[in-house]
């Protein structure tokens, strides 16, 4: 799907069909000036054709080119698509004419039905049986996992681990202090509908995961500990 064919010598039909990116009908996120004097959007057809051509002509190896292309093609026409759900649900646009984007937080995973306003408000105030399962980890636990995932990303994406080491070490230290605080909170009495006990186990696991990611850097860098 992401194989790039020659953009210049193809037939007219293929150019029409193989159009990456969006025509950029609104332009609120135009901020890139790599190729143009006035900013254009990285999700636009204009930018993506230019960028893909540049990648194709670069000296990078094929695997690296593939990674770069995927990153380019991953961009979504957010400023237009985020509004389409509203237009469809109000009956202003037909669904097939309006690709919808949405930006939920990960918390929505634990809500799995359609609710009335009153049901949600009663849930917020703890006046009904909780809408989410008791298994749902505490929001502090979830955030901690996300930050360790993010730390892993930072390490993997780093192009200069030695140079980034100070920053990464600080990040790790802050995260560990946050984990300590979470453990203190976990010692307190839980409120009703609060899965406080999920925190302790998560801290234990995530501390280990964080350490092993960090040790990975040290091994690569052969830093004396």
């Amino acid at each position, binding site marked *: 799907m992401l194989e790039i064919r020659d953009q210049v010598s193809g037939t007219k039909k293929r150019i029409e069909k193989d159009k990456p990116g969006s025509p950029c009908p609104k332009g609120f996120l135009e901020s890139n000036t790599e190729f143009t004097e006035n900013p254009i959007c990285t999700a636009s057809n204009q930018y993506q054709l230019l960028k893909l051509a540049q990648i194709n002509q670069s000296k990078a190896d094929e695997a690296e080119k593939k990674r770069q292309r995927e990153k380019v093609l991953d961009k*979504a026409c957010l400023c237009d698509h985020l509004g389409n759900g509203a*237009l469809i649900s109000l009956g202003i646009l037909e669904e097939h004419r309006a690709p*919808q*984007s949405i930006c939920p937080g990960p918390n929505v995973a634990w809500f799995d039905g359609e609710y009335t306003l009153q049901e949600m408000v009663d849930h917020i105030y*703890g006046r009904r049986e909780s809408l989410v399962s008791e298994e749902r980890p505490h929001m502090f636990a*979830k955030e901690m996992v996300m930050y360790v995932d993010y730390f892993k990303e930072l390490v993997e994406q780093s192009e200069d681990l030695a140079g980034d080491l100070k920053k990464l070490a600080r990040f790790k230290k802050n995260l560990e202090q946050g984990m300590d605080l979470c453990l203190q909170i976990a010692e307190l009495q839980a409120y*009703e509908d609060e899965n406080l006990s999920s925190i302790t186990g998560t801290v234990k696991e995530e501390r280990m995961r964080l350490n092993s990611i960090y040790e990975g850097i040290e091994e690569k860098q052969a830093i004396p500990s």
Partner: protein
Amino acid sequence: MSYSPHTFSIPVMGTGHSIDSPIRVGPYGINSVISIVDDLLVERIRKYYCQKFDLPYKNIARNEKDGRARRITAYLDTVQTIVQKKFQAIQSLPFFEQNDKAKYFEMLPDGIDLKERYNQLLETEKGSLRDRLSYDLSRLMNPGSIDVNIMAKVDGMNFEKNGNPMSAEYSDASAALRGYAQSNLSSSLILSAGFNPRLYNYISEYKDFYRNAAGYIKKKIILKVSDFRSALIQGKYLAKKGLEVFEYRVESGLNCGGHAFASDGYLLPTILKEFREKREMLTSSIQPLIEKYYNEHIDGFSPEWSITEPRITVQGGIGTSGEARRLMQDFDMDATGWGSPFLLVPEATTVDQITRTLLENATEEDLYLSGVSPLGVPFNNVRNTGSSQWHQEAY
């Protein structure tokens, strides 16, 4: 400006998913936030609602002079008209029937004065006392606030047809601000996604953001912040222009919807603890700057005006009543924000059926921090949206 009796609010969601939330939940006294980034979307929604509520509508064309600001003003004024109309209809309903007025009161948090009075009314026998209580209670009802959000980072310059750049007040964020400033709304402006000096300076050109003779601010400023330090810096910056921050809205860096501005490894409890310990500074180090500004530039800061401490609220990933209680009782938060769960409440947000079903069925693996945003900022997303299918098919 009405103060919601609720201890939660519905934050902005995307450019469109909370675009008409005040029309939906405002009549029930719940605060919610409209994104005013996309003025073209706003115009279409205004057309829809003008038809629906039989209000006059005249299109403000895409290329009209100052069209962006004018479309936003026109939409916000329309929303206000509709919220008032719907609210008054609820207010004038009778008590002792299962209607929207009962729903308004049943949804209120327990323990507050308004709810206690309602419970008292329900136990009162027919007669003059019940009539008086009913009358008083109806008058104490208030609609929720129609708040607006501007992403300070989305502030592209615009160009004339001949390619010449337009002046700074026509930049996207400045024009959106003007659109809000010129509306009739008395509500709050939420500034998110970073510090934008050009925009912050521009706020000072509109008197609705300052106290009137009675010490009342018609349009209040809410800053979405990631930590205490940035709250203090931005609060002081605005205070030097005489602008008071009504509320600091703290959001988890990663556990939130949409653009995720990760902290330097600071988890939410750490950040909130600092707010709890130092929140007094947000008044003590800012109030003198406000008074100085009023003394030097306006008619002075009246001793009769009440100095209000800024509210501190929190949002991002809150999912149970117990967690909300933890945040309010242990961290002294004044209120909580609940976003994503409301995407599954059709009475509150605009989500098309297919996307809502996608969310209902989404597991933790389907929800991920994506690279889809053209801003280059990590973006919380769900897999297999119509948008991602469209991008793949188009290619």
